[in-house]
């Protein structure tokens, strides 16, 4: 049973190992879990999960593996206890007269409610798809987002009316999962990882000249002097796509940007529209006054700066490959040449794309840019940022 659980965890990408499994078994032997399902959940979580990003995944796997596991003191009939009045009200609110007539096909409203109760009692665990069980996106008469005209819509949250809302079903750690998009909280975390490689090798070292000088001043008796080792700080250039198709993502970018500001000492930012060309600007509000030539940027900032582009890369392919393809002005040199110049100048560069990764193949432009960036395009998720910082720090 438990071995199966470990395998399921590993399949879901949680690196639980044999050592931890044995620890869990020992913990149960020592009686830490105390014969309670909730305590067993807490114990196995503390033993097997070592990273808060995996907590949500753990909850999902736990729910799947141990579905139907009821607390022993539970009352078997409780599962099916739904306030009938509530169901009726819900149905009346949601169904049109026509639809209610259609319900008659299933034997009338009361029959429908009865079937629903019965199925709720039969069904254990969440369900998605299918045509009988209550769940989401199915064709059963019961559930959410389904297509059966005779259906009763049961809202996602309300499907918790099964009495025991189990701890792991609440999925409280959802926003700590690293596949979800970035919010203000987790972005700091991710950018902190960027800072990490700046801090390598913290220590003090011997200040030889000062030691010699002060030992001489001490008439020969040794006086050691130490200096803190210098940290090299990460220098980052941010290029932010602004306007046009980016408007959807401006908010996310603003968060990324505001978080980044607090994290780096050497951080410069420039704006571009869709694709960088010969001019960039520093302030979006005073664009005309703050324009700088891209060549000047390349001259000013050394190759040790890490260049990060933030943009959805959704545009017409001409804007990248064609001279004069820009939507704003006549550019002599196509965007991909400019991008190439920038990426060749800076030793490390990457592109962050706020669009979900699954959507990239739909845009030809995103694929071209990905090629220009030599595959260094990352989704704007914690996982993507992590991969990016790894790439940048190599």
């Amino acid at each position, binding site marked *: 049973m438990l071995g199966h659980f470990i395998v399921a965890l590993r399949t879901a990408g949680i690196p639980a190992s044999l050592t*931890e499994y044995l620890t869990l078994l020992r913990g149960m032997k020592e009686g830490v879990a105390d014969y309670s399902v909730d*305590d067993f959940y807490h114990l196995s979580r503390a033993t097997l999960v*070592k990273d808060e990003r995996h907590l949500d995944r753990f909850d999902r796997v736990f729910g799947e593996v141990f579905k139907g596991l009821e607390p022993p003191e539970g009352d078997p009939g409780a599962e099916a206890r739904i306030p009938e009045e509530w169901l009726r009200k819900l149905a009346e609110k949601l169904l049109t007269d026509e639809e209610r007539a259609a319900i008659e096909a299933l034997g009338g409203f009361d029959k429908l409610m009865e079937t629903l109760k019965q199925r709720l009692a039969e069904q254990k665990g969440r369900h998605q798809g299918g045509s009988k069980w209550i769940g989401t996106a199915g064709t059963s008469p019961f559930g959410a987002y389904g297509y059966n005209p005779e259906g009763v819509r049961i809202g996602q949250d309300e499907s918790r009316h099964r009495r025991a809302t189990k701890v792991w079903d609440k999925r409280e*750690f959802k926003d700590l999962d690293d596949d979800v998009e970035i919010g203000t909280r987790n972005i700091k975390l991710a950018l902190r990882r960027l*800072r990490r490689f700046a801090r390598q090798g913290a220590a003090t070292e011997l200040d030889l000249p000062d030691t010699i000088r002060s030992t001489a001043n001490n008439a020969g008796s040794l006086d050691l002097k130490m200096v803190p080792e210098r940290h090299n700080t990460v220098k980052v250039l941010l290029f932010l796509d602004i306007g046009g198709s980016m408007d959807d993502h401006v908010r996310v970018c603003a968060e990324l940007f505001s978080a980044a500001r607090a994290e780096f000492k050497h951080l410069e930012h420039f704006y571009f529209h869709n694709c960088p060309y010969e001019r960039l600007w520093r302030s979006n509000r005073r664009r005309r006054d703050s324009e700088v030539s891209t060549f000047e940027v390349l001259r000013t900032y050394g190759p040790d700066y890490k260049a990060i582009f933030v943009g959805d890369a959704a545009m017409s392919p001409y804007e990248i490959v064609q001279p004069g393809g820009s939507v704003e002005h006549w550019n002599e040199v196509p965007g991909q040449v400019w991008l190439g110049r920038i990426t060749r100048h800076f030793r490390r560069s990457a592109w962050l794309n706020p669009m979900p990764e699954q959507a990239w193949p739909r845009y030809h432009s995103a694929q071209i840019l990905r090629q220009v960036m030599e595959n260094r395009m990352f989704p704007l998720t914690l996982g993507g940022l992590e991969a990016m910082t790894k790439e940048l720090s190599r």
Partner: protein
Amino acid sequence: MTRFQSTSSYIASRDLEVAVNAAVALQRPLLVKGEPGTGKTVLAQEVATALGMPLIEWHIKSTTKAQQGLYEYDAVSRLRDGQLGDERVHDIGNYIVRGKLWDAFEADAPVVLLIDEIDKADIEFPNDLLLELDRMQFFVYETRKTVKARHRPVVIITSNNEKELPDAFLRRCFFHYIRFPDRETMERIVQSHFPDIKQELAREALNVFFEVRGVTELKKKPATSELLDWLKLLMIEDLPPEVLRSQDPKTAIPPLYGALLKNEQDVHLFERLAFLSRQRQR
């Protein structure tokens, strides 16, 4: 065996209790993560009190090395003593300075050892402590003797997530992530810290507090410790609860905001929000 439970001064959730008890029972380190100000460090003190053990605290800085927790060989003093012809110089043991881990290992009774903010240190730091925490022993090269734990200490390690910890290290720990407490738990926490607080004041203050936390643009969201500081201030100033009620954080900065908002950008943000909403009202 005594078990760790919520006390009158520290409200622990059930999962935290299980994690602590597992770590104590199996004698493995417990790694605690969570937002700053959610009581990670205080936990160690509470565990020590609950189990009736003394607490040894080792606070980690960016310059801390793993070796410093074991012992340090003060070569410079010995060199100097050698120059001055001191007798002590012949025994190298005189120049071995014990670290916190040594203290914890050689203590007469089991102790709670807190390794605070392990992520502040160098990235190799946890790796350097692997064997020591696993076997609870280490070797002193200078005196050629092995220091072995008489009683395995209860080790509690906190991290603020600034650095990723190595897998091999994590394998040996129990892990707990302290979530930000919900309103109900927060009320209990406030009650346990200020038993004689006026109910109305506590309620209004919590309203303001959760609204402030709801402002998503904040750089540093106030956490439990900030709330407790703020409540203490409110009680010292003896502000009537009505003051808080009129102060919707969207329209004005809460009184004594210094305890809640910790950087000037956040204060500016609130000023701007207040300004905007006043304009809208006009």
